[in-house]
């Protein structure tokens, strides 16, 4: 929380990183949250303004500027506070699970906070190599279905997309989304794209 009156106002997108508040991820030394400042009003659509901010201050969030080229706009929201832009990190066309950065701006597009979970460590991964001799989408769905042990009636078609899971060793996975009628549940299952091993499951419906 910023104590009263300590917000620093800057003119352009580049902020003085010595004068902001930040939370640092100990393992990487990178910022997971920065606030206590306001950039100047940034021009362009909100996503363009947010992108300008990230490019001007990339070294807070990633050692390589190239990581920013891997960001895709996931969501632009308007609220009474202003605009909130969330970017998803994508490596060689494959989303990196949980690797997002959000930029928060006032109505006149002055950035006042940013939160980052970027994963610059995926930069060296070769997705094509990781996918070699692996399972296909249909196999991944079958494995996911078996893993939830459901004599299930699906409420809709299952969907699977490749994502990079970065817990411990980065792995290329199939992220399978399943909605079942009996029991009424919705599952996300991450299946290793090479070995077919189920790495993680989450029941994500909310009651």
């Amino acid at each position, binding site marked *: 929380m910023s104590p009263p009156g300590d917000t620093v106002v800057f003119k352009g997108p580049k902020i003085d990183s010595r004068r902001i508040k930040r939370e640092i991820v100990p393992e990487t030394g990178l910022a997971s949250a920065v606030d206590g400042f306001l950039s100047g009003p940034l021009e362009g659509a909100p996503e363009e303004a947010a992108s300008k901010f990230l490019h001007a201050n990339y070294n807070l969030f990633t050692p390589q500027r190239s990581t920013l080229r891997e960001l895709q706009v996931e969501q632009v929201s308007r609220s009474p506070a202003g605009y909130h832009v969330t970017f998803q990190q994508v490596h060689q066309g494959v989303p990196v699970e949980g690797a997002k950065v959000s930029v928060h701006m006032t109505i006149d597009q002055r950035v006042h906070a940013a939160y980052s979970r970027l994963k610059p460590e995926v930069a060296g991964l070769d997705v094509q190599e990781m996918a070699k001799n692996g399972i296909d989408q249909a196999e991944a769905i079958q494995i996911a279905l078996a893993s939830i042990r459901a004599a299930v009636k699906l409420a809709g078609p299952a969907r699977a997309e490749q994502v990079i899971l970065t817990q411990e060793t980065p792995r290329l996975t199939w992220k399978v989304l399943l909605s079942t009628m009996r029991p*009424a549940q*919705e599952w996300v299952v991450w299946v290793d794209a090479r070995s077919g091993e189920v790495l993680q499951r989450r029941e994500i419906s909310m*009651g």
Partner: protein
Amino acid sequence: MELQVLPDLSVPLERVNVYQHTQMKDVIGAMGGFLTPPAGRMDPRQVALEFTQANSLLIAKPYVLDMGKDKTTPQPPAIVQSSTVMRSPVGYHVQLQQTYEGIPIYGGRAIVHMTEERSVYFVTSDLHPDVPEAEMGKAEALSRQEALEALAAELPWKDRLQGEPHCEKVYFSHQGLLRLAWCIDLSLSPKTPIATGEDRSGDWRAIVDMQSGEVLQLLDIALYDDPVGRVFYPNPVVAMKKEDLAWNAAIPDSAYRQVKLSRLDDSGYLSGRYADTADTPNRVLETDGQFLYQRGQPGFLEVMAYYFVDHVINWLRRQGWPDLFRRPLRINACAPMGDQSKFFPYLWALYFGEGKVMDAEDASIILHELGHAIQEAQVKGWGVCEKNKPVRAMGEGFGDWLATVFFAEQRRTFHQGYVGDWDARGYKAPSTCLRRVDTSKTMNDWRGEEHEDGEIWSAVLWDLYQGLGGDSTQATTRRQARATAVKLVLTSHQYLSDGLRETLTFQHGLQALLDADRFTSADVTKPGPHEQLIRDVFAARGITV
């Protein structure tokens, strides 16, 4: 029509097709037949503003767009920031709102249409050429409440309000002069459960002169061919204030409310902009738009679910959330899944379960589930983490709080703070309610179960609403408190978009509320106006930062 390609943003009058559709003298209503050069990736709003500046002579009298640079003449009405940008397959459509001294001029709008490449090809304009009469309406201006009192003489609204009136200061053109006025939108409930032609229920817009209190214009903005339905608002226990109402009791007509079903498509089904009951088995079809059912009849649950999802999302739109739902939420109003209801983020669907009291018979259950969808719309993947983590408990608590705070006026003297007090009558062991938002739980009561722990979160939010004025004896203060609380809580969700859901805690939630308070205030360089209250209500439950 052949489009003329122009070298710059300035359009020569002889090369445009002009349409005099406006009734305002000397103002061109619409023009087209040209194409300005592409402006690359320039912000469409900026293109629109520069275009109107470059062509002020065509669009309105010169002084309308002159921004008042000449201090010797009265300051003219001016266009300020663009108000909305719409995207379509053709390109962008930027609406500009004319204002005078920061106050909108009623009906004073222009829309600049441009291609994907930002080439302007058409403009429609209703910009107002009049200058406000000096100091007109400024002296002894009526407050919002005084204006509402003045309106009551022409439109009896007291005790019949559905939702909070929306009041905005405007300049209104009346008898050739721009007068400072209140533009008031309000919705009135019927005097009886079934509306008659004379009771003036429905949606109204009133323009009330800020100086005299005269009602300058009163418009019935309800569409009489709109479909209608019958609902519980929120449920029979509250409507009848009957503590011992049994699940199988006969429900009188007075416990129902007739409502307009808005934003439906023309299919005859309950399918609209924000909700679609398509997943409901044997869904009802009413080509005449009369969805007037009672409990137990096919269609009643569908009407309940459709109406409250649409009603709340539209209410939030008016509270500053214009694009919360970009696609309709799928609804199964009677899903065969036992006595439970759920939100499915991947399906983008709400499924309501069964029971002696069907879940969708109780609007507080509908709003609880809708709360999950609202959070998902704000932050994709809100609850994608292990069960019972704090971020999921915050989801459960928010749903409970939304379900109670939305109906705070209906529950003011009976079952305030209750969730599911009709649904619970149908449990195997009938209960007073499903949960409450006004418990004494603190973080010391943490159980590691998301619904139970959600009662800590909902209690904090309830205390916040009360502290903002929800406990006032004045209805206006209570409504303002609800609007402020909803603004702060929903805004705070935007600051919880962290990719790693597992690590979010109630402390993060508190920090997000402090940020929301600050960044929705007039001076964002200082802590928000409610900082101490927010800290106090959280500290009382053992949550600090």
